[in-house]
């Protein structure tokens, strides 16, 4: 950051001092947090301080050693996802694995993946879809199952609409949210055509023994109430070369994930050998999440 900018920020900081005091009185917002910069403008020291603070808070709250990472996107990696509708049986194992992996709230129930049961004869028809079917009795004859989560669009309407830039597309294609920057206005939820975003309507509850301590600052770290969250393709795993939890758990191998730029990747194979489509193609959001009928 250059000098004039710092001066301007300092000046505005002084001006807003009263507001800060007021906000501080309402919640436990510290001066540093109030005047924090946007995530992309944080200095390495500031970011390190933030990671450490989240670690301390988690250790106090959940009583275990946690590791909060900020693994950045790697050069030469463009993630994409493909799902074989003809294999999916609607067992919802992906939903539950995702909840466990990404520390979603148990009460109220927050799930990043919604599996829709559809009439085979109607094709993909959201109007008559049922997300509340009984997963014990699947697959029901005459039905197909369509799991939907964040599509990590090339042209994400949610990112466009956020008034404070709290959500953005990373260089490797993952759309992330900064939970410390989100003001909770829910514009992104109105803008998302895939119902992928979840709001924390109250303080999320997460039992300490079920808390996953392998955390990413823009991913699965525990969220506060009043902010939006969604699927990050398990950013804390995939940037370390692992599969997202839903891919790993899927009992029928319906889920494929990988690097578009790697010719030997599974995702490349699917795109080359299968005929894929995306949801709501007409909206030109250009999802990085492809569906196909493999059988």
């Amino acid at each position: 950051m250059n000098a004039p900018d710092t001066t301007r920020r300092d000046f505005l900081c002084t001006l807003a001092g009263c507001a800060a005091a007021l906000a501080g009185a309402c919640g436990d917002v510290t001066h540093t947090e109030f005047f924090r910069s946007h995530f992309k403008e944080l200095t390495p020291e500031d970011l390190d301080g933030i990671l450490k603070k989240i670690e301390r808070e988690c250790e106090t709250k959940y009583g275990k050693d946690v590791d909060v990472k900020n693994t950045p996107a790697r050069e030469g990696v463009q993630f994409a996802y493909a799902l074989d509708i003809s294999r999916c049986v609607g067992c919802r194992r992906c939903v539950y694995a995702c909840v466990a992996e990404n520390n979603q709230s148990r009460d109220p129930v927050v799930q990043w993946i919604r599996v829709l049961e559809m009439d085979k004869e109607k094709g993909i028809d959201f109007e008559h879809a049922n997300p509340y079917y009984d997963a014990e009795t699947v697959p029901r004859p005459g039905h197909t199952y369509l799991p939907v989560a964040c599509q990590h669009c090339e042209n994400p309407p949610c990112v466009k609409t956020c008034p404070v830039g709290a959500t953005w597309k990373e260089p490797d294609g993952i759309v992330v949210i900064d939970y410390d920057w989100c003001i909770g206005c829910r514009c992104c939820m109105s803008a998302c055509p895939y119902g992928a975003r979840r709001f924390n309507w109250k303080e999320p509850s997460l039992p300490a023994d079920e808390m996953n301590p392998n955390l990413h600052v823009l991913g699965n770290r525990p969220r506060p109430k009043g902010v939006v969250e969604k699927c990050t393709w398990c950013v804390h795993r995939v940037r370390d070369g692992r599969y997202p939890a839903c891919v790993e758990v899927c009992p029928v191998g319906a889920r494929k994930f990988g690097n578009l730029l790697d010719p030997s990747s599974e995702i490349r194979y699917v795109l080359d050998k299968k005929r894929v489509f995306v949801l709501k193609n007409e909206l030109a959001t250009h999802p990085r999440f492809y569906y196909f009928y493999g059988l």
Partner: protein
Amino acid sequence: MSVFGQFLRFVTGSVRIVTRGNALYWTWILSLLVMIAIGATAYVHQMQTGLISTSMRDQVSWAFYIGNFTFLVGVAAAAVLLVIPAYVYHWKPIKEVVILGELLAIAAIVMCALFVLVDVGHPDRLQHLMPGIGTLNLPTSLLAWDVVVLNGYLVLNFTIVTYLLFMLVRGKHPNYAIFTPLVLLSIPWAIGIHTVTAFLYNGLAARPFWNSAILAPRFIASALCSGPAVLVVLMQLLRRFTRFEIQDAAIWKVAELMAYAMFLNLFLLGAEVFKEYYSGTEHLIHMQYMFAGVGEHDAIVPFMWTAVACSFISFLLFLVPQTRKNPITLNLGCGLIWLGVYLEKGMGLVIPGMTPDTLGEIYEYQPSRTEWLVAMGIFAVGFLLFTLMVKVATPIMLGEFRVAGDEHAHAPAKPATA
């Protein structure tokens, strides 16, 4: 006396005016304060438990608060209906009440800001919207644009009104080289705030119910009905309780303009209904939810038919000169317009737009007790603010409150613009 000294006396004089009043005045003020206290308590409860205390959920993630916000942006924008004829066509009788329109705009914008404030999950982070400290996501975010234009509109109207009143209170004419451009600027700006607010919905391709090019014109048309309805009632109240002289002709003219605006509003609604029902695509379901219900989900249907009936009856009442000029039917029409537009914007825009959700699920939303109480508190804040401003502005416009010496005793008794 220095200008600063005069301004101090203007302020202290204003405080004196608002702290004096009869029993009716104090009953009104105290009832508003009680409502504000109840609303504030409900909001504290909402802050503690989270927005779960509203009926909003992931499926319907904007609802009553944002609907009220939208309605009030319309009320604020409607000041133009009075400003345009008054300043552009020099229609004498209307000029007197332009200032009231601008005061109404100020109160409405304050309510708008409060409705956004209570809707967000983290009001303690609103500094993220401030340029310099935060990152206002321009030019792509329409909410960011709305923050800019609404604050600008507030500042603009506040400046115009304060300047005009401060000149009048000193028995001076406003400097038209400054004043007229500001007033003229407020006209497109008023259209702008409602257009940007319409675009906030309009730009979302995910929501076909809102993704219609006539949404912004519909917003403007309905605003030109609801805003003046408040002013028509207010003009009559002022005429009764103060020495303020407002000619019948001014009221009738406003009512006539409202009839045209309501025609346009109904016409645009009809165009929307035709397109959806005739083409009958999958997008029809939102309008079906609104007017007929889908399956057993029909909670909103009676409200929507009430809205249509209110709008249509008030259109007829204001169209026919006899009923427009009869005080009973005139005020009935104002009430019906207010109710019709309030239901249409407050519930009929936001809720059907989100029901069914983008994956086809129907979650039937109805406002929770917390939402009603918080909304009541915000309306009470707006009415209180408006009452106090009108209480100060009226004696100034009547020439009863002056801060300069006797040499200005014969200053114009009406706004110099009249």
